[in-house]
């Protein structure tokens, strides 16, 4: 089906017809310009899909959206505001690293060395904070996806038909990348109905999830009605525990970055090249004398080694208080993740299921219902 709307140009009064959709010869009309889950795309190419979405958000957050926002465009929306949240996150991280590193090059040797040690730790702290926060969510989200088929991050393409502004009637259709479950109040259930990616039926997705949740086939006549509240419950729990645990993992990341082994990590590429050349000379000289020299650690190896040493130091070194503090922080992160796994993967309400749901339902089951 092709949808058409007329838009009047405010400058000259001319009317332009905008069409959405595409009609293919001999086939049913298929509307392309509507919101669509990216289930298949993500399943087939999980990394590229993710990269594509993040790259789109990144570029827009730094270019298009601020431009629209600063102009006060009537097409600016909440999605754009939220996406722009990426800007302070990234610029803030860079500024934080700069605060602890930029000035040290003006200091003299001992002060510069000390500043560089702290600067390295702070820089890595920022990096590990981001990694810890992002990766740790997967510890809870992935098991939920594997166990129930509920991907809380399942993206969908949202087609936006913008209003013409200042006589501009071109390029009014834009795209946004949302998540089907980004709102727990208003999940995009509509995108799951009749979705061939999940099966031929209207409720295929809900049936599939329902079965994974242990609901018998006989009880899945109206799978969507039965399963939607259960999915919502899982999504809320997943979001709660992934959020709570993510900040403790982020804190643990910073804690690991604050350990001594990082002080000796050489990050400067020029220095690394010089060190490597020096090593080669020493190694050759040693070889001539028939001596063995330890293998050279490239950056990845060096980094990995220091990471392991720092993790060990984080939980084992120092005085008793420090060991307790390190283990407690790690314990909080791990504990919150495990609690999240337990809460999302085990159904504590199974026994009370139907009756408890009915009691809190807004539909009075005892009264006669008329469906019109």
């Amino acid at each position, binding site marked *: 089906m092709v949808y058409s709307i007329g838009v009047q140009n405010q400058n000259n009064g001319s009317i332009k017809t905008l069409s959405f959709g595409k009609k293919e010869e001999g086939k049913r009309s298929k509307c392309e310009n509507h919101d669509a889950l990216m289930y298949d795309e993500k399943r087939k190419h999980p990394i590229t899909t993710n990269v594509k979405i993040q790259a789109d958000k990144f570029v827009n957050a730094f270019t298009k959206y601020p431009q629209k926002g600063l102009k006060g465009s009537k097409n600016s929306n909440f999605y754009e505001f939220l996406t722009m949240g990426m800007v302070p996150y990234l610029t803030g991280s860079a500024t934080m690293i700069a605060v602890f590193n930029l000035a040290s090059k003006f200091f003299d040797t001992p002060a510069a060395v000390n500043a560089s040690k702290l600067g390295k730790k702070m820089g890595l702290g920022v990096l590990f904070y981001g990694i810890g926060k992002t990766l740790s969510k997967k510890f809870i989200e992935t098991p939920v996806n594997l166990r129930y088929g509920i991907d809380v991050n399942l993206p969908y393409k949202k087609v936006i038909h913008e209003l013409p502004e200042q006589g501009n009637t071109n390029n009014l259709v834009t795209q946004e990348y949302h998540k089907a479950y980004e709102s*727990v109040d208003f999940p995009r259930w509509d995108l799951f109905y009749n979705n061939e990616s999940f099966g031929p039926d209207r409720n295929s997705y809900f049936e599939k999830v329902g079965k994974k949740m242990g609901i018998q086939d006989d009880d899945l006549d109206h799978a969507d009605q039965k399963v939607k509240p259960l999915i919502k419950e899982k999504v809320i729990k997943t979001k709660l525990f992934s959020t709570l645990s993510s900040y403790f993992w982020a804190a643990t990341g910073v804690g690991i970055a604050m350990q001594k082994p990082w002080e000796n990590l050489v990050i400067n590429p020029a220095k690394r090249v010089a060190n490597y050349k020096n090593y080669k000379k020493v190694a050759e000289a040693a070889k001539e004398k028939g001596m063995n020299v330890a293998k050279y650690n490239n950056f990845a190896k060096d980094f990995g080694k220091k990471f392991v040493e720092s993790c060990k130091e984080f939980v084992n070194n120092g005085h008793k208080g*420090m060991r307790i503090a390190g283990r407690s922080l790690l314990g909080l992160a791990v504990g919150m993740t495990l609690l999240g796994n337990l809460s999302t993967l085990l159904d504590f309400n199974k026994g009370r299921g139907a009756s408890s749901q009915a009691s809190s339902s807004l*539909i009075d089951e005892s009264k006669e219902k*008329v469906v019109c």
Partner: protein
Amino acid sequence: MTNVLNSILANQPINQSAAQKNNSAFVFTSDGKIKPMKDKGQLLPSRVFGSPVEYAKDLKKDIVSIGKAAKGKANDHELGRINDLAMKLGSLALASYLFVKNPLKLSKAMEFVGFGTFFASMSLWPKLAIQAPLKARTGVDIHQKYIDSQGRKKMLFQDPQYVLTDLYSRDDLDKMGKKLGVSENLPDRDNFIKQRAQKTALQGNTLWMMTAGFASPLMSALMCNRLEKPIGKAIEKYSMISSEKAMQNGSYQSLSDRMKQTMSLRSFDSYLAKNSDRLMDEKTISELASKIGGKANSATIQTAIKDELAALKNNVKIDESFVRSALRGKVDDSVFAALTEQQKALLNKAIANKSFTGIADILSKASTGSKKEQVKLSKELTQILGKAKLSAETPTLSQVSGSIKTLYSNIVDFASGKGILDRYINARVGDQSGTYIANQWGRVGDKLIKALKLNGKELKAVSQGNIDIIMDKLAALASNDAEYDKVIKQLTKLIGDYEKTTSSDFVSMVQDKAKTVCTSTSNDLRTNGFVKLADKISSAAKKGTVENVINVNTAERISGAQSSFYRLLQSLDVFRKAKNGSLERQLASMLGEKGVTADKETLQRMVKACQDLVLNATTTDYVEKLKTAGFNLSEIEYKTVMKALFDSEADTTIAESLSRTLGADKVDDVLKGFTSYKKEFMSKVANWQNGMTTELSRRTVDGVTNAANAVERNNLAGKPIKSLIQDVAKQTYNSQKWLKIFGGSMLALTAVTLLAGLAIGRKGKTEKQVEQENKVNG
């Protein structure tokens, strides 16, 4: 609410109680029909800081939300708030970890300050740089909050396409309209104002997003930078007061009891019980010594404890049955039975003498082997007997647990008392940053650097050790009466405060408490049989005891800093006298008294030597009579220089300066210490007789014995002023450079933001067009 709507649309009967429980936006009339509830949403007043009660209420709500979400029942708003709370919790957990990790009190405190300033910056930056100026200019509060009918607090302009501008009253709109310059005759004026407000908020919020990332870390870092000194001072004061309070009898006892509880016997008992079967071998003894001695924070004690533990042995009775049992398997009973009377007598004698070689010899000779075999057997038997004795002597932990527990209990008593005393000493003269002595030294350095008035380039050069600039600046300071008086007044005030803090009262308090703590523990240990350890803690011999170490260390710390302070005064005095020519005159007159007439060049060389001495010299320079420092002074010249510097009580510009600023009556108090420092320095360091070696330095010349040892002389020499100036210059330069970069960046960012803010809220093309059309239409 959605469910209620769905039910209505589906014509389904509504469960009234459930709907009400869910805080529905609908109410039920008496005839069972439903109607929308009256809207309870309203705007909230804007404040820079919210009230603590509001924070507490919001926190309570968030905690309830977490409970709801854990049951799978929260909404978007609640999950959003949980995210903010989790971010704060995570940061707090991190700050707590870093608090424990950092060894210094100031660093510990700064972890929480950093946490606080970061969140404060995140909240303050948009308020101060964007929201407030925009509100003042346009009347639009871009961060206007409102509370909806469900009691949820939200930002009014968060979603530009869903703004509840209806919540604005007519008054609010009029005020905004006026500031926004909206014509009063405009039809549909209210809507026009609302659109302008919405646009302004959108622009402001975008500007916030663009700038917050740079602003929050910068602002937080700058706030921490500014707060570090006052917080350090507050911690210093707190440590001084609390540690002093702890030394008072009542507090001392209760604090000591509390400390004892933290080192409770229970955990040690359980350690002993767990390891009861372990032999008291070297490994166990080391482990125990570190467990017990670690409490007392003293390496000397730990070693002594090890010795005491090693001395805990079982009594072994060496008799025939011991020998028979030890050698069972090697020497049969038949061998014993076959011994002749004489051999028996010899064996008994050897047993009585505990001579394992004798026993082994007699028994091996009684064996049937060849001579060679007998010798071999004798050696083997000696070894077996030795091992058997050692094994019988070495107790298990359970066998000596009584003694170990007593020892532990004595050490815990000692450690708790010493802990309080250590805190008292450390707060004042501890060898670490953040203590009173370190901060006072820092304050002295700061005053001096300010008085030297170094510009950026000079500061950098001085930080790299440029002595010429230091000399020039000190000379300039010395020649300016007002500046000289000012710095002398400031320094003498700081030195006076130091003298008061480290006065004899402090020293006696340390000595008394050290004596009480050490003697009492020492007596207890002695009574319990740990005499060697008791002697290490306190004994009549004093030398090397813990009590003596505490007193000596304290005295050395005090005198070291004291000398550095006075050396600074001395330096300023020398530069002042060099500048006004009195030093040269003084040197000439002193040489004259000895019948030596010096030429101008010699006198200037001697003045230069005086200046260089106070700036650079170490004790070695005095011992070498400035030879290696490049001043070729003859004996008479050296002695004259030293006399001019350290043996002229009255002739000091400090006294003149203080008399001008403080009044003549107060001069004596301040100068008393200075004069006594100079006298001591003259006799122990600057004396011609002081040589390189200890022997030379202690020799008696002209009836005067130099009794100063190397440590004492180093303490008297104090820190060279050049090092002080260079160190402080380095710190100041680095700090200024950092501040210049990031303070400058912050200023630039603020300026750009404020300027960009000026472009916000202005009439756009469309608004102008609407107003124009309105004008045309009349």
